[in-house]
């Protein structure tokens, strides 16, 4: 067998997060009745080590290499996403501890499962083989189902988990069926390179094309694109708030990573083999539907969590514009999507962090009216929320502005995509309206109930971190843009494919 231990060095970050996950599970059961903060520190430590390991691989990953029999690809795009996932996990860990303690469900496994999900996302971003993609997506999804349903005393949490699980299982069926069709019609190819080599020929087969569409459907289900979004509002609303942030940021980023790699290179756009598949056209329709539907539905919501669930659907729509731009062969569109993912990750985590911190036991304060007067009662928290909401709405000088700026600028380079850009800009203009409703409630209305909250250093640390990240991404996006550029180049059109 062509295997040696040195190949393991490529998956060190994965080993760290999953190993730490196992350790946390054991620690949780053996160190019963101890403070759960120890578990959080373990998880945090795992994230830090994993981050260091990812950073250490960055230089070497300038050229793409494949290890483990073509299962695992090492390139900057995967590492860029890895770093995002690890950061997502770390912030989720910081937020979730105080949240669970306050709401009285000390679910120690939470941290372990977050790390397992992170491992699954890494598999997705590194996958160079359909099976690895499947395993990664399933690992992530199973963990996400548990995270959604882990607040057992809360009926909505169970409901959300149940729906998510049912729909997710359905989508996985499509994924596996699609993979089987691709496997069959390409004559037994499972590696991306192998499929890409035969895509041009195979795309004359309707079964192959059907397989590609099945895979596409399964992946856009994970990002909650219309019409496969139905689970998102219930799930996001029901899940414990930190888990919502984790899913909205991390799971979405992983799925977009897979879409970029699979549809950007293997099933590519013009100039790439497989162009006649025609998915670009369809994804463009899906993108417009997704952002329009998400924003229109969010306009009517009174529940902030549900509103943000719809807003996250809308953001998937903007990101799909970037994917369409990748599909028509615009250089740099990949980087724009990746940069957008980073800004969206921090913003989303921050926004759900604030929501997690505003509520108290037995009183989650999820309605817009509940937020009245936050501006005077807790100015720093209100300021953070304002920053996040403005970033979601794409108002400068926050990171969200540049995310949208790069994305739409990339799409603007092809006149065919003008309708998409116009729809995107119009939608983001509309979206600011409902984001600002929360701001108005916070600053312009007087509190109806006292707004005090439990003290928490880790919550504060997480929110300060995310708020700073969002502002820095808006003021000094240079470094991250460069990294995203390197990462995007890794999945740009690859010679010889």
């Amino acid at each position: 067998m062509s295997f040696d231990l040195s190949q393991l060095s490529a998956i060190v970050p994965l080993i760290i997060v999953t190993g730490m996950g196992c350790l946390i599970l054991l620690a949780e059961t053996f160190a019963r009745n101890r403070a759960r903060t120890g578990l959080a520190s373990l998880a945090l430590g795992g994230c830090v080590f994993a981050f260091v390991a990812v950073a250490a691989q960055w230089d070497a990953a300038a050229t793409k290499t494949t290890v483990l029999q073509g299962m695992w690809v090492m390139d900057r795009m995967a590492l860029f996403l890895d770093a995002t996932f690890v950061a997502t996990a770390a912030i989720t860990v910081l937020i979730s501890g105080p949240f669970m303690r306050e709401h009285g469900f000390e679910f120690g496994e939470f941290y372990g499962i977050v790390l397992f999900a992170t491992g699954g996302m890494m598999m997705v971003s590194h996958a160079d083989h359909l099976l690895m993609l499947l395993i990664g997506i399933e690992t992530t999804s199973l963990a996400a189902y548990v995270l959604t349903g882990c607040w057992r005393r809360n009926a909505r949490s169970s409901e959300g988990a149940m729906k998510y699980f049912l729909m997710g299982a359905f989508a996985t069926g499509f994924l596996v069926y699609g993979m089987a069709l691709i496997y069959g019609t390409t004559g037994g190819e499972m590696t991306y390179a192998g499929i890409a080599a035969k895509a041009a020929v195979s795309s004359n087969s309707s079964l192959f094309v059907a397989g590609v569409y099945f895979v596409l459907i399964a992946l856009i289900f994970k990002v909650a694109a219309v019409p496969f979004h139905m689970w998102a509002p219930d799930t996001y609303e029901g899940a414990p708030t930190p888990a919502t942030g984790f899913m909205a940021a991390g799971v979405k980023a992983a799925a977009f990573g897979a879409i970029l790699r699979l549809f950007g290179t293997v099933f590519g756009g013009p100039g790439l083999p497989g162009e006649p598949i025609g998915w670009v056209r369809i994804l463009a329709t899906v993108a417009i539907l997704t952002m329009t539907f998400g924003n229109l539905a969010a306009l009517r919501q009174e529940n902030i969590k549900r509103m943000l669930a719809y807003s996250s659907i809308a953001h998937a729509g903007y990101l799909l514009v970037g994917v369409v731009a990748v599909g028509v062969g615009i250089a740099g569109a990949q980087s724009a999507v990746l940069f957008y993912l980073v800004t969206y990750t921090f913003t989303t985590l921050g926004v759900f962090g604030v929501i997690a911190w505003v509520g108290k036991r037995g009183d989650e304060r999820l309605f817009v009216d509940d937020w009245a007067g936050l501006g005077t009662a807790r100015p720093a928290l209100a300021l953070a929320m304002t920053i996040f909401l403005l970033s979601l709405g794409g108002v400068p000088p926050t990171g969200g502005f540049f995310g949208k700026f790069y994305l739409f600028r990339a799409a603007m380079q092809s006149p065919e995509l003008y309708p998409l850009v116009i729809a995107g800009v119009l939608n983001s203009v509309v979206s600011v309206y409902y984001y600002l409703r929360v701001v108005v409630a916070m600053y312009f209305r007087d509190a109806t109930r006292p707004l005090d909250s439990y003290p928490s250093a880790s919550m504060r640390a997480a929110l300060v971190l995310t708020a700073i990240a969002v502002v820095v991404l808006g003021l000094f996006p240079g470094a991250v843009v460069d990294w995203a550029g390197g990462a995007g180049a890794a999945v740009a059109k690859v010679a010889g494919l």
Partner: protein
Amino acid sequence: MSFSLRLIPLLPFAGATVLLLFGRAFSRQWVHLIACLAIGTAFLVSADAFFTALPAAHESGGLHDIVWAWFASGDLKVDLAFRMDALSGVMCLIITFIGTLIHIYSAGYMSHEKDYARFFAYLNLFCGAMLILVLGDSLPVMFVGWEGVGLCSYLLIGFWYGQTANANAGKKAFITNRIGDFGFLLGMFLLFSATNTLDMPGINAAAKAGAAGLTEISWMGQPVAFWAALFLFVGAAGKSAQIPLYVWLPDAMAGPTPVSALIHAATMVTAGVYMVARLGALYLLSPAAMAIVALVGAATAIFAAIIGFAQNDFKKVLAYSTVSQLGFMFAGVGTGAFGSGVFHLYTHAFFKAGLFLCAGSVMHAMSGSGDITKMGGLGRKIPWTHRVFFVCWLAICGVPIFSGFFSKDAIVAGAFATHVFGESLSWVGPVVGTVLLLAALCTSFYMSRLYFLVFSGECRADHETQHHIHESPIEMVGPLVVLAVGAGLGGLIGFPGGLFGHEEWNLLGHWLEPVVGPELHIPHAVEVTVMAASTAVAFVGIFLARAFFGGGYREPAHQFARSMPGFVALVRDKFRVDELYNFFIVRPLRFVSRGLFVIVDRIVIDKAMVEVPAAIVGVFGRAARWFQAGDAQRYLATFAIGVAAIFYLATRPPAPDAFKVTIQGTAVDVDARGVAGTAGRTLLYDFDFEADGTVDRKGSSPTAHFVYEGTGTYVIRVTIKDPRWGTSTRLEQKVRIQ
């Protein structure tokens, strides 16, 4: 040449930060001291930059200060950089100088306010954002300021958030401005894809050079420059309250009066004019875009002025007057008289700020009421306010020597003399000029009405209010007097020296020349005629108003109202534009959204999911019973329908509309390329040239050549097949072979 321009916006920002963080701990004296100091120092720095450093840098494009490389990726490089040339310098001086005066005034006006520190923090924040807007060297930086001032305006309109009207006004302003932002963003993207740069000098240089990307003909036969200019003008119209986006400004008067003066009269609302002047070279590329700007400006000028006739709220009159004056400015920049537009911006900043602050002072005296039907005879009771108002009134009416006269005259004369519209649109200039003269007449009339109703005759207020009438404190009157001096004599800075053979007497035009190009050359005859006409117009307006309203409501006013009650009511209701919007936009939208809800929720999901034919119902019904989990079955059904829809889209036969036939003698060439829905797909084409059922040419080539044996009329039938899904479409076309 470099200069620490960053200090100018940084100072107000620092003030805002300090006040927001520690404001509640300071006493009131400290609060306004900090705020005034911040903006005052910014004025001194601007003045230093403008008068000492700038003259040396005139030739090299002005002072430039790169704070940091904001973002750079591939071909896109934008610095967070500031640039002060004559144009942005003049704007800077206006903003900081008038800003300082209004800060001082606010110290008196808002002295009873609970949230004193927050108010001053927002004011400082606004000034900082506005300075970023004008100093920004690239469109993204400008957009930061653009959004910033919008946000501050929103915060300040809603400052007295207890009142629903204010919150609603804030919302209205916000939504209208977002429409404008939409235009700004699209314009920005378009400019970038056309010129590959976002720097103002870069864009202007590309426009001056007539870059191919800009002059290329695009949609509807207009060059790219036209669309970019038009989109940006949508942004400008939103911010500067032009037809049809002006509706927010009158409502914005719900905010505190100093805010109205600073934001909604002197500075923020002029941002659109500033932007058009800034990107003048771009606009000059497209006469059609210029014509739109000029015509919209002129239409707004007269439209808002007419609405001003019948308003009975002091601030509302001034608000419509602001909309109208902004129309003058747009007409100025739209006719290529960029210098004149900016000149009017400058004089307007003085007299309108003065008028608003007088309004504040009057309302202060009248126990907060702004109803002019209840005023009158205030001239004797608040003499200083009266004197200041008198000067500003003459200025806005355009009485010679006062500032408004020169600037308005420059715009009108420019409109008559301009050549920017070219041959086909040459009618635009004279039309705009005439409309503006009429608008000037209206302006003079409604402003005089305001003056006579408020200051002349007997007081119509109730006894209680009359008793309390008093002159405002010194910190309010002081700034008023300074503004009055500016409103009275400020126009001399743009003195039309050309008339006397001394071009150099026009200081402002001289300063602006390197940025916006030389002043329009206006023939003496035109200049003199226009001056005479506008002087006449100003006096006619004043005397008419005096006949109607001198010393209170006179008989002619009543007669007029009685003879045309419908018209007066229509004007008083602001031509019912809000109602029109409500009827044509808001209600249909609500209707559509409710309809969508009914169709999607009630019919598609409830009915179609539940009551479709038995087979499907059976399948889903069984699934539903099996799952027993609330709505999940509907979700899955939607999922399945989504999959079906995607496959329907994917397998849909190509939907071409027509193919191209070229006839040469008895030979025909058929070209089915590029018909809709065929791009990017591998298709097979069958050509049947006689429609007799035998395929004459077939294969994957979309073109075919055929020679008919004789003349006559034939039908060509083309069948396009998608081999992958086995779908096909058939097209037919008749040809006559002679």
